[in-house]
């Protein structure tokens, strides 16, 4: 058993170096008594047991007391007593058995003797032997009885003599005497033995000594087990004062511990907890375990597994607790480490999965983005090409039918373009690509501009109005582009379905709506909008109302669904993609707001969206300031920032605006507007499609028929009526188209002018140069004659009149410089003598000599490679007017020709 334990221990030591519970460097020699001794090795364990025997428990005085008073103590003592008693019983039993045997033997002997005597009596009734003396006979009998004992195991007395002779009797008496002696001797020995046995019994039977020895052995075993165990044990009384402690902390002396409570001994974390725990156990009367981490000055941070059991006295009253603590700091640390590792692992795994998810989402988003970009590019650009071309086509001469077809084509194109834009917007929002931007903007300005743009393309007798209450901040922060988009969409929608009356926007501040409070979406949206909780945000309600055809109640639910319109009839009649409202709703919700609608058939509809905005901090403008300014008319100029009311009322049949459909802001800037007396603004309403504006008078006259038709038949224009942005773009297209037109007409003029073509002579020997020059001239719309050298040039000039000569400098036969000199000399003298002198073969016809051009100086332009031999100075010196450096480019040629031909 001991050996086993030892090996167990060493095994454990191999597994982990089990350090002493207490630090090694604490403790004094004096206190060494209870110090934990390091195991001195396996071989010494037995010795240690011996040593351990000599040790004493702490507080020996108290221990017996404890033994006497506590249950456990009593039971232990009882056990020992019982054991002793049992042993004594056993001894007694053995003795008794022996006694029993002896008695039996005696009885047998007596019986034998009796038999012998009877036999004897029967054989001889001798007179002398019949004593008279009763006493003697009695004695004799007694003696006989006694003698029987001695007969045990003895042979029958053999008598050789003849019966009833003297000799016989003598012999018999002698042998009986011997037997008696032997019997007496046996008796004496037995008595001796008995005495001896009694003596040894006395010496063996001392219970205290045996008990003490047992106790010593138990104690030794306990010491052997416990001295190296990382265990502290103790007993504490009802007040949790230590009465006994084993394996206490080395630096503490017994007097430091005994009679004191934990709290009095230790300070720091865990002490109170352990004390409470002990008290709890004491109160509940139930043994239990708990792990407590101590953080004391004495031994630092250590975790103990504590076992506490209540102790009862014989009367079943609690008198204290037994306490056992085992240090498990390392184990706890390991456990915690493991737990932490496991936790980290789990966290990492979660993060990984999150990451892969994110990566997946990112990839998806990227793909969506890619697709959107591709779509926008692949579809939009060719389509705008189609629409643009159609617009340009509409400026050309077309007959009535063609023009009608073209108008339909353009409006369809616009519609498709708008549809694609809408789809892109929608898919942007849905794929999460749509990023909201937080920018500072002025709501009043936005409302005004939206109305202005709508009014600019208005083709109905409608009044557009905007009404913004005073408490709406001057500047707020939000995604102005998207808000504008929503407003524009709603307004154009309202205009589309309203034939008379008015369409308007109303803005007012409201308290935070119920749907927003506590909604996470809202928080997200606020974040996206750049709003944080610390900054003041404001909820603005925006109503877009009209007096239009209204929406039947049953159509309301699907109103915001994609590609849905109130009815198929409406779709046919009013066109549109059916995406506008869906986009508006998505955008509003993306910004953390809500879009709702109320409507009454034939009375009008009101679309309401509520959005949160951050209030921009504008240092120079405060609401009050602006408001007072506004009221007091202190500001000399109308200010967009403070106006609360706008109205745009179209005048049908007004003069054509010369600037196209886009009208400068200044035309629309309302003067100081009071809420009480709004000033009506008049916009230059464009009655006819913008395509016709800006065209020349003649075109208008030509196309009058068409124009009248478009005016009288508004059903056609209805389809082109769409949101203002597309109108604006088509307006832009018109302007471009105009300029195109003027350019082309300019060209026509040029070509008509060139009917009287200038005559140009190119003097050049290089075929390639000629070819290039020819191509350039053709591009510029000129033709020319060619001379391959100076001589040819002179002959050509002599024969016909030229407006310009382009002369190569370096040529065979006669170079450009010489030729020019000769030409100049002809111009001065009026004859070609110099040329003839120079050996130029000139066929002179006398009558042609007096040519009228002789007085005019012919522009001669050198074409020079700009080398040393062909320097510009030389060119000028030889009478040339200018020079073009080679290689000749179209630009150079063009400039040169422009300079000398006009």
């Amino acid at each position: 058993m001991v050996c086993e334990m030892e090996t167990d221990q060493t095994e454990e030591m191999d597994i982990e170096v089990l350090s002493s519970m207490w630090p090694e460097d604490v403790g004094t020699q004096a206190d060494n008594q209870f110090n934990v001794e390091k195991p001195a090795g396996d071989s010494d364990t037995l010795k240690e047991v011996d040593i351990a025997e000599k040790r004493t428990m702490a507080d020996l005085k108290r221990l017996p007391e404890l033994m006497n008073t506590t249950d456990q103590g009593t039971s232990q003592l009882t056990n020992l007593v019982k054991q002793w008693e049992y042993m004594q019983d056993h001894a007694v039993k053995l003795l008794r058995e022996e006694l029993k045997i002896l008695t039996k033997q005696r009885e047998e002997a007596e019986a034998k003797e009796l038999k012998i005597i009877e036999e004897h009596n029967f054989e001889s009734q001798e007179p002398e032997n019949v004593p008279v003396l009763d006493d003697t006979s009695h004695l004799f009998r007694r003696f006989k009885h006694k003698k029987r004992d001695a007969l045990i195991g003895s042979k029958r007395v053999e008598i050789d003599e003849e019966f009833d002779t003297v000799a016989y009797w003598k012999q018999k008496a002698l042998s009986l005497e011997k037997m008696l002696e032997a019997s007496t001797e046996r008796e004496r020995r037995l008595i001796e033995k008995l005495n001896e046995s009694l003596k040894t019994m006395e010496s063996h039977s001392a219970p205290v000594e045996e008990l003490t020895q047992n106790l010593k052995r138990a104690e030794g075993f306990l010491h052997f087990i416990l001295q190296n165990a990382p265990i502290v044990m103790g007993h504490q009384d009802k007040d949790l004062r230590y009465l006994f402690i084993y394996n206490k902390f080395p630096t503490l002396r017994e007097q430091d511990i005994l009679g004191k409570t934990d709290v009095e001994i230790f300070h720091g974390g865990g002490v109170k907890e352990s004390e409470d725990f002990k008290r709890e156990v004491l109160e509940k009367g139930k043994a239990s375990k708990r792990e407590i981490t101590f953080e004391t000055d004495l031994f630092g941070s250590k975790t103990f597994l504590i076992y506490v059991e209540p102790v009862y006295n014989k009367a079943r009253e609690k008198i204290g607790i037994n306490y056992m603590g085992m240090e498990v700091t390392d184990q706890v640390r390991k456990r915690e480490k493991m737990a932490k590792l496991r936790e980290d692992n789990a966290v990492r795994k979660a993060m990984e999965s999150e990451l892969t998810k994110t990566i997946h989402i990112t990839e998806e988003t990227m793909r969506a983005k890619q697709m959107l970009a591709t779509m926008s590019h692949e579809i939009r650009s060719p389509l705008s090409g189609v629409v643009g071309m159609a617009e340009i086509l509409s400026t050309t001469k077309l007959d009535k039918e063609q023009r009608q077809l073209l108008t339909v084509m353009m409006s369809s194109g616009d519609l498709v373009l708008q549809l694609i834009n809408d789809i892109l917007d929608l898919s942007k929002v849905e794929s999460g690509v749509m990023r909201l931007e937080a920018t500072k903007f002025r709501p009043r300005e936005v409302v005004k501009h939206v109305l202005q743009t709508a009014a600019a393309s208005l083709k109905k007798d409608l009044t557009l109005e905007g009404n913004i209450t005073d408490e709406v901040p001057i500047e707020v922060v939000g995604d102005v582009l998207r808000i504008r988009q929503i407003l524009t969409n709603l307004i154009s929608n309202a205009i589309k379905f309203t034939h008379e009356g008015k369409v308007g926007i109303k803005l007012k501040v409201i308290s935070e709506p119920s749907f927003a409070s506590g909604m996470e979406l809202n928080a997200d949206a606020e974040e996206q909008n750049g709003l944080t909780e610390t900054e003041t945000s404001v909820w603005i309600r925006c109503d877009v109302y009209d007096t239009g055809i209204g929406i039947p109640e049953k159509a309301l639910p699907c109103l915001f669904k994609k590609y849905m319109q109130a009815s198929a009839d409406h779709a046919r009649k009013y066109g549109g993609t059916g995406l506008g409202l869906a986009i508006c709703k998505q955008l509003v919700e993306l910004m953390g707001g809500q879009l709702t609608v109320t409507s009454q058939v034939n009375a009008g509809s009101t679309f309401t969206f509520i959005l949160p905005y951050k209030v921009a901090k504008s240092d120079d403008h405060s609401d009050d300031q602006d408001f007072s300014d506004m009221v007091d008319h202190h500001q000399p100029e109308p200010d967009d920032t403070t106006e609360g009311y706008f109205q745009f009322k179209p005048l049908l049949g007004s003069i054509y605006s010369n600037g196209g459909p886009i009208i400068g802001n200044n035309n629309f800037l309302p003067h100081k507007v009071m809420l009480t007396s709004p000033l009506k603004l008049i916009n230059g309403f464009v009655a006819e499609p913008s395509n016709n504006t800006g065209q020349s008078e003649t075109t208008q006259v030509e196309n009058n028929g068409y124009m009248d038709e478009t005016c009288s038949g508004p059903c056609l224009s209805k389809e082109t009526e769409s949101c203002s942005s597309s109108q604006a773009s088509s307006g832009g297209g018109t302007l471009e188209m105009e300029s195109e037109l003027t350019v082309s007409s300019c060209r026509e003029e040029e070509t008509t002018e060139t009917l009287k073509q200038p005559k140009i002579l190119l003097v050049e020997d290089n075929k390639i140069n000629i070819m290039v020059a020819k191509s350039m001239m053709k591009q510029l719309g000129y033709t020319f004659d060619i001379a391959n050298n100076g001589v040819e040039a002179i002959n050509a000039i002599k024969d016909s009149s030229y407006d310009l000569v382009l002369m190569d400098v370096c040529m065979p036969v006669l170079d450009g410089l010489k030729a020019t000199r000769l030409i100049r000399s002809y111009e001065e003298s009026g004859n070609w003598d110099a040329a003839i002198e120079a050996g130029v073969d000139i066929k002179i016809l006398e009558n042609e000599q007096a040519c009228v051009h002789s007085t005019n100086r012919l522009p001669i332009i050198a074409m020079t490679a700009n080398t040393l031999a062909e320097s510009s100075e030389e060119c000028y010196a030889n009478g040339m007017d200018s020079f073009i450096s080679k290689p000749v480019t179209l630009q150079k040629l063009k400039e040169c020709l422009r300079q000398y031909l006009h």
Partner: protein
Amino acid sequence: MNTVVAKLQRQFQDYLVSLYQQGFLDNQFTELRKLQDEGTPDFVAEVVSLFFDDCSKLINSMSRSLERPENVDFKQVDSGVHQLKGSSSSVGARRVKNVCISFKECCDVQNREGCLRCLQQVDYEYKMLKTKLQDLFNLEKQIVQAGGAIPQVNIN
């Protein structure tokens, strides 16, 4: 179909740019390309082939002139070089033109050896350019056949 065209167009652009970058061509070639329009769809090719014919003729005549060491007609050579220089300048054959400049210098100092060297170089350069441009025109042709348009190439 479109991708084929796009690929060819990309190839064409890259090739043309490389010709500029390697100094075979200069801006005058761009000028030439500008002159080509619907009316004269093969203008550049025509001019260039004329130029190459010219080159071959001139080089032949010049090499004949430079044939005999003791009796070189430098005037004739000079005239040829001048022609060649003008032509190459006109079509934007930059390398040919550059060789012509040094050729002309050699000619001016009547350096027959130099002239022969330059002649060789010119011969090499124009043939080189000829192959390159033929490739380019082939690419153009392929693009047109595939139904694409010759892309505008901005060299700068």
